[in-house]
């Protein structure tokens, strides 16, 4: 498979009587680009793969120069003994609840924004964009002070609420673009048959938007799961999430590299699994989250 953008100029130059350009041997010409791409891929992924291999290294070979070692699960087993499982559970609960809540509130709103032209709609859209842009520290200080007063510090509920600040914006923004691609004719047919707006939404629109809904849910889950800043400031011991727990290995318990590597690998796992499962939609979602379609 040769690539047109490479081939055409050469053909053109040849036709114009220009001297023949220096050519790579045939077996290299076609594979040059993929080879470079694969080498770059390996180089760029090396730091990540290095973390993963450290997680499987036995303690006595941890600082050794050898690339070969017998993989062990010691580091993972030692994680089970401390409070790490509880932090993982906290992360799962917070991410799930925050995702569910932001879908529940955000999806109907996104539908309304996609279907209804009303005065001031532009401002609602702009407001949502600004929320996505706002620096977390601007939210953290008032939330921290309010939580001290409300008793929500170091609670799962407190984290779920503050994660709405970014998740709700994502849901409204993304689902709006998904709803906009669904033809209105189907809904109109249902309305003529006497179905109400939200009945039609539930029975006609939502099933059609299911792939987009899945992608949005996955993104919300990943963003909540990945959060470090809010959890660092708003939790202490009780509601600590996994990312904060790993950093505690770094600070309070000395340099426990094998625990850190194993913890990091565990935290990455759900993200990679989700990303692979909804690969196609994720790419669309990430792109749509970046610029307006």
């Amino acid at each position, binding site marked *: 498979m040769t690539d047109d953008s490479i081939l055409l100029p050469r053909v053109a130059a040849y036709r114009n009587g220009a001297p023949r350009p220096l050519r790579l041997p045939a077996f290299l010409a076609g594979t040059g680009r993929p080879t470079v791409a694969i080498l*770059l891929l390996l180089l760029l992924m090396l730091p990540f793969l290095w973390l993963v291999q450290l997680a499987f290294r036995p303690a006595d070979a941890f600082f050794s120069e050898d690339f070969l070692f017998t993989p062990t699960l010691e580091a993972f087993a030692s994680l089970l003994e401390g409070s790490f499982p509880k932090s993982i559970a906290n992360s799962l609960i917070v991410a799930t609840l925050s995702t569910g809540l932001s879908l529940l509130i955000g999806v109907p709103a996104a539908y309304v924004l996609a279907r209804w032209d009303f005065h001031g709609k532009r401002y609602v859209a702009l407001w949502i964009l600004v929320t996505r842009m706002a620096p977390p520290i601007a939210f953290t200080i008032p939330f921290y002070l309010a939580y001290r007063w409300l008793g929500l510090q170091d609670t799962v509920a407190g984290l779920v609420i503050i994660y709405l600040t970014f998740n709700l914006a994502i849901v409204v923004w993304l689902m709006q673009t998904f709803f906009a691609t669904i033809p209105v004719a189907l809904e109109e047919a249902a309305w003529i048959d006497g179905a109400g707006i939200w009945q039609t939404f539930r029975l006609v629109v939502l099933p059609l938007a299911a792939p987009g809904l899945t992608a949005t849910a996955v993104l919300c889950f990943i963003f909540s799961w990945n959060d470090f800043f809010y959890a660092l400031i708003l939790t202490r011991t009780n509601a600590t999430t996994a990312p904060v727990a790993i950093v505690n290995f770094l600070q309070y318990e000395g340099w426990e590299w094998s625990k850190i590597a194993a913890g990091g690998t565990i935290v990455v796992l759900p993200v990679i699994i989700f990303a692979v499962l909804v690969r196609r939609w994720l790419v669309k979602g990430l792109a749509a989250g970046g610029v307006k379609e």
Partner: protein
Amino acid sequence: MAAATSDWRAERRRALLAGLLPAVVVLAVITLVPAVGLVVASLTPLSLLDPAKTFHFANPLGNYIELMGDRRFIGSVGTQVKLSAASVALQVGLGLGLALLLNGSSKVLAAIRSIFLVPMVLPPIVVALIWKIVYSPDISPMHRALEALGVPVRSLIANPDTALWAIAVADTWQWFPFTMLMVLAALQSMPVEPLEAASIDGANRWQLFRFIIFPYIRPVLVVCALFRLIDSFKAFPLIYVLTNGGPGTVTEVTNYYGFVEAFNFSYWGYGSAIATLILAGVFALSWLIARLGLNSHDGR
């Protein structure tokens, strides 16, 4: 008949409003109220040590005036500018290069494209740990390779001359996929005819890029750069884990200084003033994006 239609219209309006309202109310409570709270707090000397000064507005601009003379704050803005400029330039460049490289029709290229996105979806804290390892000489693959080549270097994050650039490299690694993804999407929606026409007219690869591809993707590059610029103001986990603002304060960006003032020293009023200034900067840039975004849309 007309009455029935207007009845239906009114009911539809009510139903739609009912769908929109919860989100608007929740968003107002969790974004507008804290924003107002932040600005109000920034006008007071509120801190952990002196709770009596909670609603003390005798000198509302006191924090801002103090900031203007705070050398650590001014320094943090300079650090922020350096870090943002370096990391945005690097990641947009790398993202663009990779997008051009991967935009071929070969099956291998199509298959590996999505693997390049991994750094962007990794939890930021894991990215920070990955680079903590890379920059720790005793377990780092980079330091081992350099040693094997006979050029051992000491830790880049412990050295004041290199620490900030080491963070910029880590940030670039995390975020080049964003530009790559956006540019790839633009390249794949690009019409082929102008390229073919130019090839037949004898344009070389550089000319094709310079006069046809680049003008087409320029709006996307601008939007990418602005988005990443705004996000670069929020850089936190990398700095927290890699250098903690040090050595000294050479990697302390404005966002990090705000965090230190508000949560290490518990000067909440002062921290709020810093956060308010960052927020104002973000507003200004968002406004710019909204304008540019509309223009590039009309331009197509």
